């Protein structure tokens, strides 16, 4: 066992070398600090929870309601010990496929002292799990993991107290392991957790101002006592996904249910003047046409009937008098010419204007990133059941709690008569923060008084899902005679006005189509780079612009995996590369110099960890120092490598891409990827590796292929032909993921567990662009790098 007062070796080296001023002791205290306080026991909870526990989860038995919120201040809300000496954990999170559910079991079983295999976890259903907000912000482990650990530790403490009473032995004289408490002085005296409390309630009240601060009396274990954390048990959700036995949200079938399909406006902003029910009334299985405002849907007995009826329903739409948006070709000119709806106060360091005036060289560049969609593989879907005067929605909504609140308001129902049963679904990544189909199914179910299943078409999903905002970013940088970066001026514009939130009523398309409007739309945001570069003179300005149509628009902006990060980092880390090239410096050395230009650090050692991470990526890749571009290859295939780095919250990543550019077709193939990744304590290294690999490839798809294209009235990229995506042939032949902070034992770190997932999306596009430059000497400044665009750039450069 290592000494756990040490930070990881890679960080330690940096700290020692740099004699950082931050106190390590202070850092360790801060990172491990827990507020513990004592609460009285005995507040009774609902019996629903016990019923749900016995039923083995939230889905099968469809309790009649109402559905009050589980009380997060009750230990029984979180942990149940069963008569067979197993445990169930109840957490208010949703697993989007990165394995957080398995990680929660690892963390909680460690704290409870029960075998991982003897546990299971119930997630994200509003009536049986405490409201932890569902998923978002890659905070499941970083934030929500703490109350989970604390409540599991508290359950262990209570069990030890019960055993103490039973044996007449002080708690200090007891040992808990694998859900059995034994007397240290006489190990033959044992009691299982089941014998102590199996199928009975703890009736222990916790303390905490909110769900994130929930705590009992017990403290969590020091990291060296954790057994499952740092190991890689297989994800528990995978077998059922592989053998076809999993019941997904798309699979739920109820007696008497009907199928609905939406009919969307043919052009954005169109007004529904009427429809001809006779055009579908005689179709087999026809049930009803439902229209409200500009929302139009048709309901049939069978799914294929609803699809056909939606296709055949004749409706009279009136196009808007004014074009709802510029074409995607004209988008950036429009954005640059528009008067911002809001501008941030520039973040200022030094005097960038003066520094630019005295700079030996000034570099300027414009970067452009289009609207990009989620385009989930499975279009939006939900089933709503209005039985017993309640409303139950079976949904893959990542933010099921928000959806419950939003639907209750939308339908004017009491919150406790609405519940969302969370089930697995296609990748969410922010899409279901505006869970259109859930609201639609609930509305239609209430209208019809029958269970209604809604599923969007491919074209509807690709056109009308929420979008990551387009960016136009101007950068200026100044180098002195020695090639030192002395000025950095960042100015970003994002088409992000009326950015939608988290399942509030106005976020969803159905409610917008029915006329819901906010008096003051969300102002949106254009973010700034997240790096630790020490640049003496710097200005960072951001602006938001609006398109003409902001409601009922297919260009509805919302959170797309690491919101704004890929766009911003593409520009900033490409530009750092441009400056390195202008200075004749190696791109890794240029970045390290900027990182090492200050000794100031934050409480999480982010500067030191940035240095360690950039170094680790370069080492794993086998980076040979030299400036970019490299001398041009002579053959048809041009090869190069590029690096980019960023952080998100306390998670730091550096990524290197190695590309092949086909000079005859313009096709870019990323042959190899390296990611050095530091997210603090790692719960499940193998699950982390896969999340990192897939997150990088998602960004690679955005780098090479993805763009929402539109004319001035509708989206044109609506399927997998018109909206290409990464495919098998694009896959790198090698991906290396280097977990910088101890992987996993024996060098187990004592950094807290930070978030993982979204951070890797930030630098990837820039790494690819920098590699293309290294290979070709041509700088691509507009995403995506589709073959025709790269080829045109190569030809323009005379290659």
């Amino acid at each position, binding site marked *: 066992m290592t000494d756990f007062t040490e930070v990881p070796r890679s960080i330690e080296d940096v700290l020692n070398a740099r004699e950082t001023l931050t106190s390590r002791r202070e850092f360790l205290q801060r990172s491990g600090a827990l507020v513990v306080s004592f609460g009285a026991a005995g507040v009774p909870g609902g019996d629903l929870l016990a019923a749900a526990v016995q039923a083995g989860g939230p889905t099968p038995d469809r309790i009649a309601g109402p559905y009050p919120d589980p009380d997060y201040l009750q230990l029984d809300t979180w942990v149940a010990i069963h008569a067979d000496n197993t445990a169930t954990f109840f957490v208010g999170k949703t697993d*989007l*496929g*990165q394995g957080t559910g398995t990680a929660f079991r690892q963390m909680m079983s460690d704290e409870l002292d029960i075998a991982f295999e003897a546990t299971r976890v119930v997630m994200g259903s509003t009536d049986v799990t405490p409201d932890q907000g569902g998923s978002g912000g890659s905070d499941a482990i970083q934030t929500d993991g703490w109350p989970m650990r604390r409540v599991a530790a508290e359950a262990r403490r209570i069990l030890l107290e019960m055993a103490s009473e039973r044996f007449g032995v002080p708690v200090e004289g007891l040992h808990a392991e694998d859900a059995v408490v034994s007397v240290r002085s006489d190990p033959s005296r044992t009691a299982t957790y089941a014998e102590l409390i199996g199928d009975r309630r703890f009736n222990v009240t916790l303390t905490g101002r909110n769900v994130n601060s929930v705590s009992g009396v017990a403290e969590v274990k020091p990291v060296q006592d954790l057994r499952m954390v740092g190991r890689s048990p*297989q*994800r528990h*959700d*995978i*077998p059922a*996904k*592989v*053998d*076809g*036995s*999993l*019941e*997904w949200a*798309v*699979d739920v*079938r109820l007696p008497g249910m009907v199928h609905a399909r939406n009919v969307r406006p043919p052009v954005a902003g169109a007004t529904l003047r009427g429809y001809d029910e006779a055009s579908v009334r005689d179709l*087999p299985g026809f049930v009803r046409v439902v229209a409200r405002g500009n929302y139009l849907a048709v309901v049939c007995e*069978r*799914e*294929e009937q609803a*699809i056909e009826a939606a296709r055949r329903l004749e409706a009279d739409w009136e196009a808007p008098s004014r074009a709802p948006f510029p074409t995607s070709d004209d988008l950036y000119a429009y954005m640059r010419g528009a008067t911002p709806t809001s501008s941030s106060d520039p973040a200022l360091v030094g005097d960038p204007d003066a520094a630019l005036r005295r700079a030996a060289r000034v570099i300027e560049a414009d970067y452009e990133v289009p609207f990009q969609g989620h*385009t*989930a*593989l*499975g*279009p939006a879907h939900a089933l709503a059941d209005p039985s017993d005067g309640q409303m139950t929605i079976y949904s893959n909504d990542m933010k099921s709690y928000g959806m419950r609140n939003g639907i209750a308001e939308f339908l004017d129902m009491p919150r406790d008569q609405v519940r969302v049963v969370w089930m*697995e*679904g*296609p*990748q*969410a990544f922010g899409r279901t923060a505006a869970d259109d189909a859930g609201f639609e199914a609930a509305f239609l179910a209430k209208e019809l008084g029958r269970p209604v299943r809604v*599923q969007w*078409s*491919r074209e509807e999903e690709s056109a009308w899902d929420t979008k990551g905002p387009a960016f136009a970013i101007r950068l200026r940088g100044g180098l002195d005679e020695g090639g030192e970066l002395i000025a950095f001026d960042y100015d970003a514009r994002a088409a992000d006005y009326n950015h939608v939130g988290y399942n509030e009523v106005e976020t969803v398309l159905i409610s917008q189509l029915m006329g819901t409007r906010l008096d003051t739309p969300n102002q949106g945001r254009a973010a700034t780079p997240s790096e630790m570069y020490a640049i003496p003179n710097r200005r960072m300005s951001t602006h938001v612009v609006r398109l003409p149509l902001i409601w009922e628009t297919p260009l509805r902006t919302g959170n797309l995996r690491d919101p704004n990060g890929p766009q911003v980092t593409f520009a900033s880390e490409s530009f750092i590369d441009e400056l390195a090239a202008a200075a004749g410096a190696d791109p890794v050395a240029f970045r390290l110099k900027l990182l090492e230009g200050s000794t100031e650090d934050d409480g999480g050692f982010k500067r030191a960890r940035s240095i360690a991470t950039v170094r680790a990526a370069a080492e794993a890749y086998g980076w040979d120092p030299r400036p970019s571009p490299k001398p041009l290859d002579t053959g048809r295939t041009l090869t190069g490598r590029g690096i980019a780095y960023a952080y998100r919250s306390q998670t730091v990543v550096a990524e290197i891409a190695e590309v092949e550019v086909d000079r005859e077709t313009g096709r870019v193939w990323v042959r190899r990827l390296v990611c050095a990744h530091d997210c603090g304590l790692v719960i499940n290294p*193998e*699950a982390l590796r*896969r*999340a990192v*690999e*897939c997150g990088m*490839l*998602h960004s*690679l*798809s955005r780098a090479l292929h993805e763009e929402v294209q539109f004319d001035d009235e509708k989206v044109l990229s609506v*399927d*997998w*032909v018109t909206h290409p*995506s*990464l*495919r*098998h*042939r*694009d*896959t*790198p*032949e090698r*991906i290396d993921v280097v977990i910088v902070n101890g992987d996993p034992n024996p060098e187990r770190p004592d950094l807290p567990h930070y978030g993982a997932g979204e951070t890797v999306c930030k630098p990837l596009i820039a790494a690819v662009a920098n590699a293309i430059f290294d290979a070709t000497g041509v700088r691509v400044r507009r995403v995506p790098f589709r073959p025709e665009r790269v080829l045109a750039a190569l030809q323009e450069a005379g290659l």
Partner: protein
Amino acid sequence: MSLVTLRVNGTEHTVDVDPSTRLLYVLRNDLGLRGPRFGCGLGQCGACTVIIDGVATRSCTTLTSRVQGEITTLEGLSPDGDLDPVQLAWIEEQVPQCGFCQNGQIMTAKALLDRNPDPTDEEIRTGMQRALCRCMTYYRVQAAIKRAAATMRQGAPDAEETAR
């Protein structure tokens, strides 16, 4: 509506549907199967893939009345609960993220390996090219196919060949 008889996973089923109904909806809504899923309805993504007489087929564009042969769905790969080597490799490699597309990945890979038990990297890339994954699990999918191929050839995984 009319009666259509289908052989699915070794069992004969007769359903009363409009014969133009796409096979996907019959498998899901009449037979209650969960493996094939709707992704696009256009035959572009592969989420609905089933194997008909050894050929990976997009059930979302297949007319039910035209189906003549034996249909195998994801569930049919392990009829007695014994997982197919492809499914085992998927678990060993921990391939899925959300998993929604994996029916298409697994069924396409199964048909590929039945046709070509020892595919090259290039043959895997080409053979899988039309199976989309939006979580981008391709790297592990390809590793799992190699692992499954090694298992099927040798009866046990060859560590050297499947290591990545």
